[in-house]
């Protein structure tokens, strides 16, 4: 944690508790005041951390997902070898490197912060983590940290994919994805209550994306078999999930209105699949193009339905970050597409999507900075668990 007790007092965005405590402290001699201050600061810190641990759920990794993918997008766009973005290369190499390093460090910082918090949460609030695992939406976000780390690894400006450190780290991050796969996908078709038609919702795409990210990273390292294995795993389950979600057997998707932004994950999964396939085969062939077009179509279809998201736009919440990374993914795929198919239209698509992605993430950063207090509020839908798992939570408490 990088915050010091002193900065908390000055920082107006701290949790309300702290402010009240500070205001109530009676005046005394300076020395005593300092002791009291530091004691209160420690207690305040403890409370703040504790309340954060209660509130930070895996959905907060959306922030790190967005930042990491944005970094990757900028790495691709500003890449000197990318002929499609020649206009950006009025920026000299000297600027490219620092900009990338800055972005990457920021993403790293946020990711480390979130990972540490979540680690503490696993240690101290394991019952809550378990509750997340049992929740049909929360469970999919358990993939999010690993995806973020994998993407961050890929967008690292300094090492090449074939480096030994890269490979070692890949194993560290990809293994949990596979373990989660086995657990969750197995549940889909065997488990009593948590079968697919009951739990399927748009966030289930994250499990598919996790596999595809692993596949792409493996392909970049030259591990053909592993990457094809992970790719096929992801695609098979994507097929099943796509059909199930389109059928919408159970009507309302059991998704609260606040989580409507996750509908954009519909377009995220095919774009990731097209990128992964492009990495596996080496070129952006017809299959990748088809997946990219499907993703573009789904994205357009969602953009044309703004009333679907009206309800969730009333109050700021962390689910808004779910708007950002599907757009970034689509922009990445369009970059790849524009590189393969030269022409005006692909170029325009790439520029539009990239600028949209940048705009969205800047807007989200602004909103987060302005409303960071709201970000950690108590009544987050992901924390509200359905009845059966709430019972479990009661038991654990």
């Amino acid at each position, binding site marked *: 944690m990088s915050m010091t007790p002193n900065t908390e007092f000055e920082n107006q965005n701290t949790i309300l508790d702290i402010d009240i405590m500070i205001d109530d402290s009676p005046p005394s001699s300076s020395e005593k005041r300092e002791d009291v201050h530091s004691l209160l600061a420690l207690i305040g810190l403890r409370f703040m951390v504790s309340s954060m641990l209660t509130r930070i759920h895996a959905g907060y990794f959306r922030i790190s997902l967005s930042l990491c993918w944005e970094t990757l997008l900028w790495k691709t766009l500003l890449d000197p070898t990318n002929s499609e973005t020649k206009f950006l290369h009025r920026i000299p190499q000297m600027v490219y490197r620092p900009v990338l390093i800055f972005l990457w460090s920021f993403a790293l910082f946020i990711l480390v912060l979130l990972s540490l918090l979540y680690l503490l949460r696993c240690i101290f609030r394991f019952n809550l983590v378990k509750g997340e695992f049992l929740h049909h939406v929360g469970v999919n976000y358990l993939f999010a940290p690993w995806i973020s780390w994998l993407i961050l690894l890929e967008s690292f400006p300094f090492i090449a994919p074939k480096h030994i450190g890269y490979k070692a780290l890949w194993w560290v991050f990809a293994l949990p994805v596979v373990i989660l796969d086995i657990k969750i996908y197995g549940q889909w078709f065997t488990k009593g209550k948590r079968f697919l038609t009951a739990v399927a919702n748009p966030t289930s795409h994250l499990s598919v994306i996790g596999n595809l990210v692993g596949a792409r990273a493996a392909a970049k390292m030259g591990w053909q078999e592993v990457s094809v294995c992970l790719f096929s795993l992801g695609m098979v389950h994507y097929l099943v999930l796509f059909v199930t979600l389109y059928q919408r057997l159970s009507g309302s998707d059991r998704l609260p209105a606040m989580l409507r932004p996750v509908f954009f994950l519909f377009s995220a999964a095919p774009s990731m699949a097209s990128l992964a396939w492009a990495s596996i085969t080496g070129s952006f062939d017809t299959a990748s193009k088809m997946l990219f077009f499907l993703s573009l179509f789904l994205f357009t279809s969602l953009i044309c339905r703004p009333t679907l998201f009206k309800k969730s736009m009333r109050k700021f919440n962390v689910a808004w970050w779910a708007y950002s990374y599907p757009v970034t993914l689509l922009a990445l795929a369009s970059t790849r597409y524009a590189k393969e198919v030269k022409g005006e239209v692909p170029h325009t698509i790439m520029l539009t999507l990239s600028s949209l992605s940048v705009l969205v993430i800047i807007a989200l950063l602004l909103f987060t900075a302005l409303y960071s207090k709201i970000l950690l509020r108590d009544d987050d839908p992901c924390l509200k668990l*359905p009845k059966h798992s709430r019972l479990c939570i009661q038991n654990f408490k």
Partner: protein
Amino acid sequence: MGTSEQIHPANEPSSEGLPSLIRFISSEMDHDFDSIVNDHINNLSAPALDSYSPNSSIMVSEAAAERESNRIHSVSISMPPTPKRVGFTDNNETIDAPDSAAATSKDKKTRFYSQPMPSATTTESSAGAPASGELPRHPRISKLKDKRFDSFKTWSGRLERQLSNLRGNKIQEIEQESVSQPTAEPQPNTPINIPVDRFFDALEGPELDKLRASEESILPEDKTWPFLLRYPISSFGIILGVSSQAIMWKALATSASTKFLHISMDVNLVLWWISIVLMAIVTFAYVLKIIFYFEAVRREYYHPIRVNFFFAPWIALLFLALGLPPSVYQSLPHALWYVLMIPFLCLELKIYGQWMSGGQRRLSKVANPSNHLSVVGNFVGSLLGASMGLKEGPIFFFAVGLAHYTVLFVTLYQRLPTNETLPKELHPVFFLFVAAPSVASMAWANIQGSFDFGARIAYFIALFLYFSLAVRINFFRGFRFSLAWWAYTFPMTGAAIATIRYSNMVNTVVTKSLVVILCIISTLTVTGLLVTTIIHAFVLRDLFPNDISIAISDRKPKTHRRWYHHRRAGSTDIDQFLKYADSAEAKDIEAALSGNIELQSTAAPKEVSQD
């Protein structure tokens, strides 16, 4: 209160006597209370709007248009009541609240009160209305009928009045209506969204075109309606059938493997010109229908089966471009492809978006074989684009079509119990199953440049489906002929064309004989259908029967109102099991409001309600 201003929400009578809020609650008991209150508050606060303005942007606008169940329109009526009207108010006592049918009829009377009755002029202006002959004999009945059909007219007859004014005809005196049928529930002029459940409850049959015994139609069933009202969108199927024949004969004449048949290009030329003429006629008639009876067009759009036929005009245009004889025009410009595909893209963005996120019209509920029409257009566009030499656009539509076809195919094959629209018996609509794979195989062959494995896989799937339906030919009996059958012939023709392409690649006796057989079958089918159509048109004179499916009342007749669930006997198991968390709320919300997803989701996942 009577005539100055009356506020009419979607389907409720305005306040009269009883406080309207109570009336709301008592008559709409299966609505969510919040929504009712919201409706009412909206009604009270909204200013008077023109009730006759149709929602003409339904077809091309976004989801908002479809979900505006809360849109209210109020009517301002300027004519003073006559004693006779008061008499009718007494007749149809509406104070006992649940009798909303009478209430709305009374309101309808008041609503239509100020509307002049251009009886003669109306029937003259609507093309080919057969009712004009009856006018001199039964002026009142014909006026009645006009009034009833007025609810379907665009701007409820204002256009006719304007036209008749232009023609200098006298506008008739304002009369009250005579007896309005006690059970007929007049359709308010305000655009309402009819929930898809209403269609399922009110209609039956493989094409959802027969009214159930317990239902009433809001238009008189014993009279012949104006021609335009009877003109369904499925008439575009004729063009599909004929133009696909043109393509087939063109392929027969130009393919290397069928040179032995010595077909001349004239057949293609003749058929193509016939299709052009038919297209012009059908389009003209339907455009007239849009102009004059927009409400009927809207209702067709909400019909779960007819909505797919809205793709038919665009597919027909694509077929015409595909079947273009070389003697007429050598090669089409690329811009034409974009022009043809853009409206198609907009329409499919709307429809597929409904499948994905719309509340009521999700696929597991409305899937039926006619949905293939929504999907096959992608493949046809892709085929045309690839044959014109475009590269990326065809791949785009092929990808979209393939993804949605997979979903549709799985859903239809599952024959889910929650799926109401699948006909239990075989019906010619099942031939649409053959359409998508055969066109997809040709499209893929054009994209790839040769009839490779992907194309062959799709082709064999098409062939298998064709044969599995053909051997069950005995079960295709006993169905009433309808114009939509024309649309079911193009898959057979498509399979024949795909076989021609295949035989170009695999040039054996087997494939050639298959070509001949399939072409003969398809030609015979089309000829038979043509004869049947002519018989029905001129001998039996029932080619265009009263289109009951657009005239269902927007609410069930009183006795059956609350028991929607009974009808879905087979679905209870899966429904119960799947909806264990939010069954009651979800059903009620969906039944009550048309696709208003915000309200739906506030109620449905109660345990995670956020607001």
